[in-house]
């Protein structure tokens, strides 16, 4: 035990002396979690909290253009600036110059076009019921489009969200116009009040709720996603510190001396694992504490801890052991520190990319999702998502636990085999 503690003490001193390693292990994840959470939270607010600046040029001579603008303003999703004096050929450059993410061109015959569509539909319906004759003299719609210009830096998912909001508003406007026309054609001045009331009341409600296995329903937000995801990424980045440290010891001759001290080598590996396990878990604790206690002060969502605390500890320890074993494996096989750092860092970035740390796995092509299953980071994040977002039942965690155990075992086995071949063990 004394030998083990001496070895642990030595590892602690070596780690503290490696200033870059300390920064990488503690400062990098804190910065990553803060920055990514703030960015993603802002992106979330951008589409959800009336933050999107919209430029509108309304050339419509009728009333529907104004109605659409009112609906855009009332939707709560846009901050609308009208610039009706602009021409369509100026709108692209004006969008950028006025720092707008999106601009809408409402064409001159927008109302006439909608009225034509409504008139045709009403006539079709009433003639189908035999109430009127089919009227072939009705004005045919031209299908003149509403034009939307967007800043090219706007990400595809935001653009699609905006287009979807706009389509919904347009559809509402068109439906109202069609009904008005239908009732008018049936001899009413306007839609009767009780029908308007019943249309309002019969709107289908949508209730959305996270699908979790536990009783508690944590609200998915940028903190619940980012704190575990980037903690895992940082944890695996220990390959730079631990892997490099292992290569350095081997190259400087300390390992040669250790080979002449019986039983010292397994002890050295064990003490390295102990120290880095502590470092990894302390990393997680710091990041979780920041998410819980500091994020709310910065206007970011608070991190909600899972109810299954034991499972959280198990997944944290297994993730840390997987990261440590991988770092030791790289440090054992690398011939130089440059090899260990370069290969280690790149492999972690690839593992993170295919493992769903940066973007969710489900949006990747099927073959990449399959390859992603090989990434230890995928299983770690899966485990943390089950805990932080899906209730964290043991049965749901079983796949993660089995994979992480197998991965750790495989890395350790390869390390032992390599060290035996080098006569260290």
């Amino acid at each position, binding site marked *: 035990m*004394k*030998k083990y*503690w*001496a*070895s642990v*003490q*030595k590892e602690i*001193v*070596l780690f503290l*002396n*490696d200033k870059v390693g300390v920064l990488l292990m503690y400062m990098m994840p804190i910065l990553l979690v803060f920055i990514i959470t703030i960015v993603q939270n802002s992106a979330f607010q951008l589409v959800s909290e009336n933050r999107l600046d919209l430029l509108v040029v309304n050339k419509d001579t009728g009333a529907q253009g104004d109605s659409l603008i009112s609906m855009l303003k009332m939707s709560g999703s846009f901050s609308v600036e009208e610039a009706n004096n602009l021409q369509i050929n100026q709108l692209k450059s004006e969008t950028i110059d006025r720092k707008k993410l999106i601009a809408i061109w409402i064409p001159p015959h927008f109302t006439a076009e909608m009225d034509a569509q409504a008139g045709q539909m009403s006539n079709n319906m009433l003639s189908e019921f035999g109430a009127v004759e089919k009227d072939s003299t009705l004005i045919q719609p031209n299908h003149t489009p509403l034009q939307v210009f967007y800043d090219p830096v706007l990400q595809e998912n935001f653009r699609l969200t905006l287009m979807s909001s706009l389509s919904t508003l347009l559809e509402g406007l068109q439906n109202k116009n069609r009904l008005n026309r239908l009732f008018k054609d049936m001899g009413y001045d306007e839609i009767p009040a009780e029908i308007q009331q019943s249309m309002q009341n019969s709107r289908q409600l949508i209730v959305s709720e996270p699908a979790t296995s536990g009783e508690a329903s944590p609200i998915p937000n940028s903190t619940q996603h980012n704190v575990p995801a980037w903690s895992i990424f940082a944890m695996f980045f220990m390959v730079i510190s631990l892997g490099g440290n292992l290569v350095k*010891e081997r190259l*400087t*001759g*300390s390992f*040669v*001396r*250790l*080979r*002449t*001290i*019986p039983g*010292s080598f397994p*002890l050295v590996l064990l003490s390295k694992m102990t120290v880095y396990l502590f470092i990894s878990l302390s990393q997680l604790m710091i990041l979780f504490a920041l998410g819980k206690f500091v994020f709310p002060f910065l206007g970011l969502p608070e991190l909600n801890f899972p109810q299954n605390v034991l499972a959280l500890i198990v997944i944290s320890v297994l993730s840390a052991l997987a990261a440590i074993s991988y770092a030791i494996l790289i440090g054992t096989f690398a011939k130089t520190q440059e090899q260990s750092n370069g290969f280690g860092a790149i492999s972690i970035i690839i593992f993170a990319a295919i493992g769903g740390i940066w973007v969710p796995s489900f949006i990747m092509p099927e073959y990449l999702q399959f390859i992603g299953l090989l990434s230890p980071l995928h299983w770690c994040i899966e485990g943390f998502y089950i805990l932080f977002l899906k209730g964290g039942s043991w049965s749901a965690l079983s796949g993660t636990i089995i994979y992480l155990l197998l991965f750790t075992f495989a890395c350790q086995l390869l390390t032992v085999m390599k060290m035996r071949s080098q*006569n260290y063990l």
Partner: protein
Amino acid sequence: MEVAIHITDLVKRYKNADKNSLDHIDLAVHQGEKFGIFGPNGAGKTTLISVLCGILEPTSGKVSYHFDSRDLAIRELLPHVGFVPQDFAFYPELTPMQNLKYFGALYGISSTVLAARIDRLLEQVGLNHVKDKKVGTFSGGMKRRINLAIGLINQPKLLFLDEPTVGVDVQSKVAIVSLLEEINRDGTTIIYTSHHLKEAEDFCDRIALIDEGKIIAIDTLDQLLQANQVSNLEDLLIRLTGKHLRD
């Protein structure tokens, strides 16, 4: 004198090498002896020491160890073996005190004994005044001395030294050699390689000359000089190994 190490027909060939690094070596080192191994670069000196202290497995042949009237396997002997490699084998981020404590603890030496031993060793190698400074900041000579002190932390019965004085100033060299004389007087068997031929002349009881993995001469220095009719070790080496440059 009793034989401490007996080497019989020892061969070491590295993987993918086209020739033996150690080529059928037979050798006996006696207990309490200061035994020097000399030869040009690439002769096999470091390989021989690495095999003798168990770092490398021999390809064939036998090495047997005998101490305190007992035959021992290298694993049994290792706790009593000191090894001072040619490379600096310590942690430059640690102080001499921390390095010595760490390696001493790995040998299982009790804290009180270890503390006394560290004090004595630091005094002997002249590093007491810098015991709490990081070794990485030391000069080459100071690093050689801490490298040696770590090799002595377990008070070895058998000490292997691979070029312990390479690249150090005269003062450090004198300090190292005099410390080695002292521990040899206390009964430690020393096996020593060096390029400093003057050191060998002054220090070693017997020497073996090795070239291309073979032992080409072995005896006391006086006997070797007399037999080859030369006046010093340098001339002896040139006579026996030739003047051609080695890789």
